[in-house]
């Protein structure tokens, strides 16, 4: 009787599937402050969005009660849409972050092999890790239920939409999470897993669909409706967008025959496939580690005798740390993978340019807007990540005490690390510079002054982001925390603060604060410069004809604008300098954490 009860309990609680790993992970998760911080931040962002929408759509101080009541329906739709979108993307990002070190931690701490000496199997390891992190994400998602419930009570949102958004979010989270877990088997650095997973998601759900759509449209002559339907089958991001369009604009004419259910089933099937693969690979890795062959195989792969050209010794020139840092590649991958990556990126770029060329868009303003913004966003992203790994990687590789025990000064360390970040992120920034130079000086579709003005914009922000990254890398213990903090910092400075300024400005009706914040934003500067200089209609203007639109004072000429860009750049450099000073002061504190 007792054994039957035990079996029943084991079956019901799924402990046969997760083993003790699930319990262990839950205990650890409950002690991690960052989970509470993430939840609080998530709730704060949701509430902020809610307040903004409410004030914008209903709470205007001049509006009467009848007007406000008439707007409730639209406000309900807007709130639900915003929450669904935030939840959809935030839950995926959080699942990627939370699962980014799930297996790599076990490998790095050499506990995976130890687990294999117990009755725990690889299915339990993967399931336990996966479900425990998912539970955290579901808890976070659960925070929105009261808000959704209240808005639903006021009417305007069909149950069908709520169900669709819930299922799409759930399956997307499962997919993003298992993808992150799978990649974490192969990389010990959580930040690498995060970046690779996010890039893969972008590739799968943005780049490939665009490419596919173009092929279907140009190659097969399919109608837009059919293209959308085909892509939706494999793309939850597009599916949720279409669900939102259906909700907010019922008459737009979204094809009725596409179904979110198929998408969910497809995503689930792919996730299941990835899950099974993860279980098999984890077992293989665990057995290798248990036999002590995991580190040996790595060593063998680095054996000089098996490495062509390994005998070549490079001699150090100049300051040693600077020498070492500027030799750090962007990605620590072999020459074959490096060539393949280069060919892939170059191929994508040439292909996309070709598409624009075929549409006659190369001399259009929007084309240069799009590419410049993409390059700047990717550049900022990589600079943010690389800078945040500088000191924590020294610490985790246990080189930090030895480096601090030399005569290299703190300033030299910070300068060398900054130069290292610039070197590593240079390929991305060179894409932007190459684009602008090509279209300014060779094909005259951008005014040549844009090149210098864009340099004035990007150089300070590169140094600013590098300084903040090195600061967080010094302040925080592990790389993932530093990377996440630096990303949050960048988002707060250039996205959340303008957003907050907008909210604060609504009650007063004065836009001064928003204007000031936006006027300091480099993305605004980039847009402003390109608006006046990009496109064949602007590229041949004389300097006196260039009139830039400044959000504060209206139009300004070339010299005034350049001067302002220079002054604002100096401001960013001054803040960077302050962060460097702070970093220098804390560099030797907590060396051994």
């Amino acid at each position: 009787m007792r054994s039957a009860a035990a079996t029943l309990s084991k079956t019901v609680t799924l402990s046969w599937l997760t083993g003790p790993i699930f319990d262990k992970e839950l205990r650890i998760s409950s002690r991690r402050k960052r989970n509470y911080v993430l939840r609080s931040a998530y709730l704060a962002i949701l509430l902020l969005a809610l307040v903004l929408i409410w004030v914008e759509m209903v709470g205007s101080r001049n509006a009467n009660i009848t007007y406000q009541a008439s707007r409730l329906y639209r406000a309900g739709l807007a709130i639900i849409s915003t929450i669904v979108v935030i939840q959809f993307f935030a839950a995926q990002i959080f699942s990627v972050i939370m699962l980014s070190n799930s297996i790599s931690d076990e490998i790095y701490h050499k506990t995976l092999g130890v687990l294999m000496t117990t009755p725990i199997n690889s299915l339990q390891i993967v399931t336990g890790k996966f479900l425990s992190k998912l539970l955290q994400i579901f808890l976070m998602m659960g925070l929105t239920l009261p808000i959704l419930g209240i808005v639903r009570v006021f009417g305007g949102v069909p149950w069908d939409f709520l169900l669709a958004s819930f299922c799409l979010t759930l399956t997307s989270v499962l997919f993003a999470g298992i993808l992150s877990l799978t990649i974490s088997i192969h990389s010990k650095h959580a930040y690498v897993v995060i970046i690779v997973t996010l890039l893969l998601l972008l590739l799968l759900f943005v780049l490939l669909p665009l490419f596919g759509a173009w092929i279907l449209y140009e190659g097969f002559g399919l109608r837009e409706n059919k293209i959308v339907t085909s892509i939706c089958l494999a793309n939850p991001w597009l599916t949720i967008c279409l669900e939102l369009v259906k909700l907010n604009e019922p008459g737009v004419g979204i094809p009725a025959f596409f179904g979110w259910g198929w998408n969910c089933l497809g995503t689930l099937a792919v996730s299941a496939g990835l899950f099974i693969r993860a279980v098999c690979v984890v077992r293989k890795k665990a057995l290798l580690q248990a036999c002590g062959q995991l580190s040996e195989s790595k060593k063998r792969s680095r054996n000089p005798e098996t490495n062509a050209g390994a005998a070549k010794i490079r001699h150090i020139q100049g300051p040693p740390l600077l020498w070492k840092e500027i030799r750090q590649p962007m990605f620590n991958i072999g020459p074959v993978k490096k060539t393949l990556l280069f060919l892939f990126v170059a191929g994508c770029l040439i292909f996309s340019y070709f598409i624009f060329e075929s549409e006659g868009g190369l001399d259009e303003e929007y084309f240069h807007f799009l590419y410049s913004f993409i390059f700047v966003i990717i550049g900022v992203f990589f600079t943010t990540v690389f800078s945040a790994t500088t000191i924590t990687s020294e610490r985790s590789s246990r080189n930090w005490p030895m480096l601090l025990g030399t005569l290299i000064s703190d300033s030299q360390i910070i300068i060398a690390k900054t130069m290292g970040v610039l070197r590593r992120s240079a390929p991305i920034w060179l894409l932007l510079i190459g684009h602008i130079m090509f279209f300014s000086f060779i094909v005259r579709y951008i005014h040549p002054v844009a090149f210098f003005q864009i340099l004035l914009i990007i150089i300070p922000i590169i140094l600013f982001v590098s300084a903040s990254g090195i600061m967080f890398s010094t302040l925080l213990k592990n790389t993932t925390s530093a990377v996440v903090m630096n990303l949050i910092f960048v988002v707060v400075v250039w996205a959340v603060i303008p957003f907050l300024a907008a909210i604060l400005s609504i009650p007063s009706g004065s836009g001064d604060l928003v204007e000031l914040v936006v006027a300091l934003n480099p993305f605004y500067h980039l847009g402003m410069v390109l608006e006046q200089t990009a496109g064949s209609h602007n590229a041949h203007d004389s300097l006196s004809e260039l009139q830039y639109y400044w959000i504060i004072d209206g139009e300004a000429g070339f010299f005034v604008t350049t001067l302002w860009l220079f002054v604002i750049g100096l401001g960013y450099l001054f803040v960077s300098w302050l962060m460097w000073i702070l970093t220098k002061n804390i560099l030797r504190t907590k060396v051994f954490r």
Partner: protein
Amino acid sequence: MIETINLTKCYGNLQALVDLNLKIGPGDIYGFIGPNGAGKTTTMRILATLLEPTRGRAFVDGKNVLTQGKEVRRAVGYMPDFMGVYDDLKVFEYLEFFAAAFDIPSKQRKSIVEGVLELTDLEGKKSAAVDSLSRGMQQRLGLARVLIHDPKVLILDEPASGLDPRARIEIRELLRELKKMGKTIMISSHILSELEEICDYVGIIEHGQLVFSGTLEEIWKKLGTHSKVRVMVIPEHKEKAIELLNAVPEIEQVTEQKSYLLVNFSDGQIAGNVVAKTLVRGNVDIISIEPERLKLDDAFLQLTKGMVH
């Protein structure tokens, strides 16, 4: 060469070091032993300028670790307990990197690096990637690194941990070589028999406090091991020998061990000759008489209480 005065280090409420007073002379090899968490590594890190003491002062080669950090770092070669290596450097590059980091002019670096590679027997590995080296080789590389700027003082935290017996013997020989070169060496290790063989002085630390500091002879004296003598006689005369020795007034106690007799003298007297005379007069056939020697492990156990933070 190394001096600490009331050195204290607190981590929050935890006192890792409490008024530590230490003195190590030039050219000495000082073995620093204690249980895990006793404060050895903290002391070494302070002396290497990597930690700031909460209170007290520390000097290396007459330089204050707090105010003259750069000068201290020039004088010290510090090898941490867990040493990292840069993944993407070869052995020669790694050592050249640290040579440059210690401001050694570029013209001299090659010969200096080759010198330390020869000293540490790593010449054959100079083109190998540092992370492809075995644990023993990496420890040798660590020693080569600390020697690169020819420091007067070497602070080595567990340099032999995790090494196989051959590698440990080789490291020990290397330390003897370094002593001959006039280096002052402060070394911590859990393998006390090794320290016993190479150290001139030993410091025993527990709970952040120095329990003992001095020569090995002074330890034996403190523990009273000089007042014990081991006597081996032929088995047939064992009973007779016990009877005779028990009658000697200076002898406090005679205990029979498996293969010998352990004779305890009262008041810390050492009187091997009294034992010999007594047994010879009693016609007992003696195999050997030798003073009882404790091992450093035993001394460590007797002097410490097993307290850790």
